[in-house]
């Protein structure tokens, strides 16, 4: 996918083109121009999915705004990394198409991002101690840093590593280059202060899957396409009539929005 390294700023959508131009955004790697552009142009589409003729007719998706991530460049690294983990393919959309980056942004802004339900009394475990813990999620749990701080450190580290090695930010690097950094992250080879980097990879992957497969009410799993790809039917009230079937029964998914409306 090295050809994707070529910046793709051509577009018939003036809104998107201006956005990319104004931010100086050039994108490569797995996510490519069209996908990452999609993060920002969704709000330029009207309700029926077609592009609006002029901006006055724009139907804005109010959930497409960042609440945790102040810096756009952190968010674009997150988006690229999640798409690398769960890419668009013949089965259907990848992380970006499922709105996973917005899902993670919202989660980090809430209880989960500040470890609000966790026991948080000191003493915590230092980095050397965390390295001795076997399970990746336990390394996160015992760090003094909360998930929000871990995400910021991890994403900036990935971006910085990309700049250092390839003279390109993470989202502009080639897919091969992105995979090299992701591989080092997953192997625990990148130095983080808060946790060993393999634990950040596990956290990022878990959050990506949560965004792909949780109910759409949380801002991910757009159009329930994550569930469709898994052939999971969501919040269906009953399988009593079909559970004994010898054949696989394919059913349209139901979201909690649909389910609760019926009650």
């Amino acid at each position: 996918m090295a050809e994707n390294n070529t910046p793709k700023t051509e577009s018939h959508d003036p809104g998107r083109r201006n956005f990319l131009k104004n931010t100086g955004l050039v994108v490569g790697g797995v996510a490519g121009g069209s996908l990452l552009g999609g993060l920002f142009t969704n709000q330029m589409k009207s309700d029926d999915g077609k592009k609006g003729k002029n901006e006055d007719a724009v139907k804005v998706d109010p959930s497409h705004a960042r609440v945790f991530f102040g810096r756009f460049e952190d968010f674009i690294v997150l988006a690229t990394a999640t798409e690398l983990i769960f890419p668009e393919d013949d089965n259907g959309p990848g992380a970006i198409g499922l709105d996973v980056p917005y899902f993670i942004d919202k989660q980090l802004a809430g209880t989960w991002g500040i470890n609000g339900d966790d026991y948080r009394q000191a003493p915590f475990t230092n980095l050397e101690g965390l390295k001795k813990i076997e399970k990746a999620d336990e390394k996160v749990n015992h760090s003094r840093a909360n998930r929000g701080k871990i995400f910021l450190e991890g994403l900036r580290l990935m971006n910085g590593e990309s700049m250092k090695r390839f003279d390109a930010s993470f989202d502009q690097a080639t897919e091969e280059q992105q995979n090299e950094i992701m591989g080092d992250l997953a192997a625990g080879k990148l130095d983080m202060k808060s946790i060993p980097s393999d634990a950040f990879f596990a956290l990022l992957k878990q959050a990506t899957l949560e965004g792909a497969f949780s109910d759409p009410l949380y801002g991910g799993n757009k159009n329930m396409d994550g569930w469709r790809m898994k052939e999971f039917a969501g919040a269906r009230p009953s399988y009593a009539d079909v559970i004994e079937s010898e054949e696989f029964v394919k059913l349209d998914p139901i979201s909690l929005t649909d389910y609760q409306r019926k009650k």
Partner: protein
Amino acid sequence: MAEELKKVDVVIVGTGWAGGITAAELAKKGYKVVALERGKEQSRDDFIGAKDELKYSIRYDMMQDLSKDTVTARGSMEETAKPVRNNNYARFGNDTGGASVHWNGVSLRWLPYDFEIHSQTVEKYGAKKIPENCTIQDWGVTYDEMEPYYDKFEKTAGVSGEENPVGPPRSDKYPNPPLKTTPSIELFKKASTNLGYHPYRLPAANMSESYTNPDGETINACMYCAFCEEYGCDFGAKGDPIVTVLETARKTGNFEIRNESTVTEVIHDGTKAIGLKYIDNITGTEYIQPADIVVLAGFVFTNNKLLLKSKIGKPYNPETQEGVIGKNFTGHFSNISTYIGARGFFDNEKWNLSMGTGALGAKVDDFAGDNVDHTDLDFLHGYEIRYYHLGQRPIDNNHVPEGTPAWGKEYKEKNLFYHNRSLIIRAKTAFLPNRYTYLDLDPTYKDEFGDPLIRATVHYEEQDIKRAQHGVETCKEIMTEMGADIIDLVDVPDDVKFDSKFYTNHFLGGAIMGEDPVTSAVNTYSQMWDMENLFVLGGSSFPHNSNHDPTETIGAFAYRASEGMIEYLGGEGGLLVEAKQTSKA
């Protein structure tokens, strides 16, 4: 100063099965009962449309708020214990009904061997068969004595099931027929039968049909909606305390639940309990609720913490092996007792794995308890093999064959392809107590009120590892017979250590029952030897852990304890069982 309230007949800590059964039985007899529940009030209405995997299975909405209270854990006495910080490592129940609301519904009787484990082992294999550090002991009661209580629990909870071909004798059949079956359950049963084993359907407190229990409570038929384990039931179709015993108690007019009430101490005069001290979570006000009988029916850690803090009973000392409170802590520990086995990937099959219910499945008990001869085995007790069809939800189930890249196109492709094409069968193993596995108070970490957290020290002995490895081998044998194209083992390494994960709610001991006050905390009516009007119920009273799930046995002993309490209140007090001296002087 704590405000002292008007005395009642019975005050209970907790509203799970143990507290709920006690409340129903005593309230039906006309006694005034108050239950103190630290979690919030909840009812069936809270669960309508609660089919939200992120909220319940991933963020653990129904579990204890660890920011206020947790436990610490370590794998040996040499280590410094760390607090369990996240619910993924501590799925302790909370709120009205406790863990009994979000349970799967697996309802199993324990074995005659369990209750007489020490004497039967010595009789059959000789005393030398018991490993040096193993602290198994008889419970002081037999299966035959417990059978009527098991029968009573099954009828209250509406258990759906079929006869276990290698199980202990029953006085009656299950109150409901087995749940519906599925092609993958039948595949598991066929493969097990081919290998000479005796599979049968998991007994389930999920209703196979609408059912009215002997107390007149109706439980609806299960919808197989797949949101059961870790969820409250959308349809009132799971036998739980909210739709059964708590409702039965409420109808008498003699029962009150006080939610958001955290009990901090048992008030006593050294020989008798006076009442319970608790804090209203909302106002911070401290109260003392006096009662004729005080019942601790909290989770294992709550019961032990209250006994240790209130200085009731003698704390266990692992060096001298003297004392009782905290002794024989056991459980179904994730990496040795529960989440081990064989996962099969099938390229040419596709099942409706997203459908199901908490205790839908089948199991094999041929290696349970002492069902096989252990003469040539290097462990005591055993394991069962289980296949669950509990409804595979998508965040929690992203299984790919070993060797698949951890991210990217191939990862996604296999993740999606195998979602309805992979099955896991698991070995659920017993865990036998040893002198180095126990509970005490942590020297460093505190709860929200500044009281020490409970510390769990869990040391795996060689026999526990061997038993688990044997179980994994049997899982592999069955999965091979089932015809999987790829089999990945969730194996047990020789040097496996406790991973500080409390992932089941099956944790037991610390205030164990027995015949001798020197080696046990309570008698078989759950009555504290050292304090005759204090009853300590639930998993904390189990001297060891069987391969079977504990809930039904907790329920059965709660019925037995309630009988004892009624006798105690109606008579002149005193111990319900005469103490025996079985220990060496």
